[in-house]
């Protein structure tokens, strides 16, 4: 290890080391405490016995540490420790110089995902509310569908009830919608660089249709009421609105187009020797600490 220079710096004089000396008081105290409680299930005398042990243990312990801690000197015996490996060679993932990935990971990517999610969520709400306005003359329709059915205590609700304003349902809808949009935004930012071609097509068309298909397949069970009132064409339109907006924002912010020619490992964002921008500052270990 590199610390050879520190040898014998603080402890002892290189010949021996201070260690706390062995002591019997802790076991005595533990025994006393156990006896104290054991008296409750046996006889009172055991408790008294235990109490005496506790007092003795405390006093003895006290003398161990005060006025100063009792030490024993443990002599240091020279015994070389060999730190070596038979596997000195480390394989590398083969990469050429221009394959250095751009700053795609880190907090900036997460921020891009969050922004994309929020923007997409707003964009998605527009067709959804439009749908409510056109079919049921109420902007609350889609919101109530999500919020009211989302918590599952609907039983045979009427279309009129869905079309009126309920603050609880609005609140729940906002929470569910917000969480889902953020999550999908993050998912996009995680996945898009791995499939760098046509990001907007992927986000705006493939993902929404896939997603709608999955939801369509089990919504009838997850929430029959919601399933009964939903309009699938409008649902797909909303999903596409989300995908296009979120995809655009994310692909702009994370320079996805530049990673087209990278190997898969790089696109997946692996931190691997030879692929990291830390490479050049090898000699300045102080620098790395600040990045935590």
């Amino acid at each position, binding site marked *: 290890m*590199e610390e050879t220079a520190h040898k014998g710096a603080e402890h002892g004089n290189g010949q021996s080391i201070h260690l706390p000396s062995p002591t019997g008081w802790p076991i005595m105290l533990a025994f006393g405490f156990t006896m104290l409680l054991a008296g409750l299930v046996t006889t009172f005398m055991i408790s008294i016995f235990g109490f005496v042990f506790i007092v003795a243990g405390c006093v003895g312990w006290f003398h161990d540490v005060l*006025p100063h801690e009792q030490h024993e000197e443990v002599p240091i015996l020279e015994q070389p420790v060999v730190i070596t490996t038979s596997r000195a060679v480390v394989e590398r993932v083969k990469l050429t110089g221009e394959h250095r990935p751009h700053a795609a990971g880190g907090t900036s990517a997460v921020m891009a995902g969050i922004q994309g999610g929020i923007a997409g969520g707003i964009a998605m709400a527009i067709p959804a509310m439009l749908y409510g306005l056109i079919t049921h003359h109420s902007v609350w329709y889609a919101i109530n569908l999500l919020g009211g059915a989302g918590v599952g205590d609907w039983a045979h609700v009427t279309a009129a009830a869905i079309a009126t304003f309920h603050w609880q349902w609005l609140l729940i809808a906002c929470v569910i919608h917000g969480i889902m949009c953020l999550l999908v935004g993050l998912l996009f930012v995680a996945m898009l660089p791995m499939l760098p071609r046509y990001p907007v097509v992927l986000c705006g068309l493939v993902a929404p249709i896939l997603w709608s298909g999955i939801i369509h397949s089990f919504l009838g069970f997850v929430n029959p009421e919601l399933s009964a009132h939903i309009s699938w064409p409008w649902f797909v339109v909303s999903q596409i609105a989300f995908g296009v907006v979120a995809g655009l924002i994310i692909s702009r912010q994370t320079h996805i187009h530049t990673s087209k020619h990278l190997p898969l490992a790089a696109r997946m964002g692996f931190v691997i020797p030879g692929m990291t921008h830390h490479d050049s500052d090898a*000699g300045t*270990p102080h620098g790395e600490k600040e990045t935590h």
Partner: protein
Amino acid sequence: MSTAPIYADENWNLPSRGMVAMISLLIGESAIFTIFVVAYIFYIGHSVTGPTPAILQVPILNTICLLSSSITIILAERAIEHGQMRRFAFFWAFTMALGIKFLVGTGLEWRDLIYNHGLTISTNLFGTTFYSLVGLHATHVVIGLIMLSIVLIFTLTGHVKQQHAERIKVLALYWHFVDAVWVVVFTVVYIVGR
């Protein structure tokens, strides 16, 4: 061969182990008190028979004593930091006096409850929860006082010195905790529960 420079961080300061341990202990203690407080709150008004919390007298003086002992112990901490041992001994003893006053006050309160109101730990749920919670706190005060008195004895015999300030602070932290818990117990038992 390695050519990496020796990594010597000049400022390698870690928190004092005594302080860390005391904070850990107090986190654990808080959990114990939380359980007792929750039980107390849960059982408010559940007693089937017997006296109700209405018989309690609010122990204002006791509370003032205990809370001000936190201030005197801070003054004692400052004194030992600056090596003023006489001043330290004075404030330390003062802290203890306030603690003892609190204990005596609690004892008198209990005597009144037991003999004048017939409330014991087995009377009803109020009795059970009241004596358990207040008693748990009083036990902590007693333990604190024992430790404080040991320090006082060693101070008077001249064994406690300025370099022990760190340990004194750890002990003082415990005392602050006991005072802080009293605020909670007081609020729950004498304000919310009554």
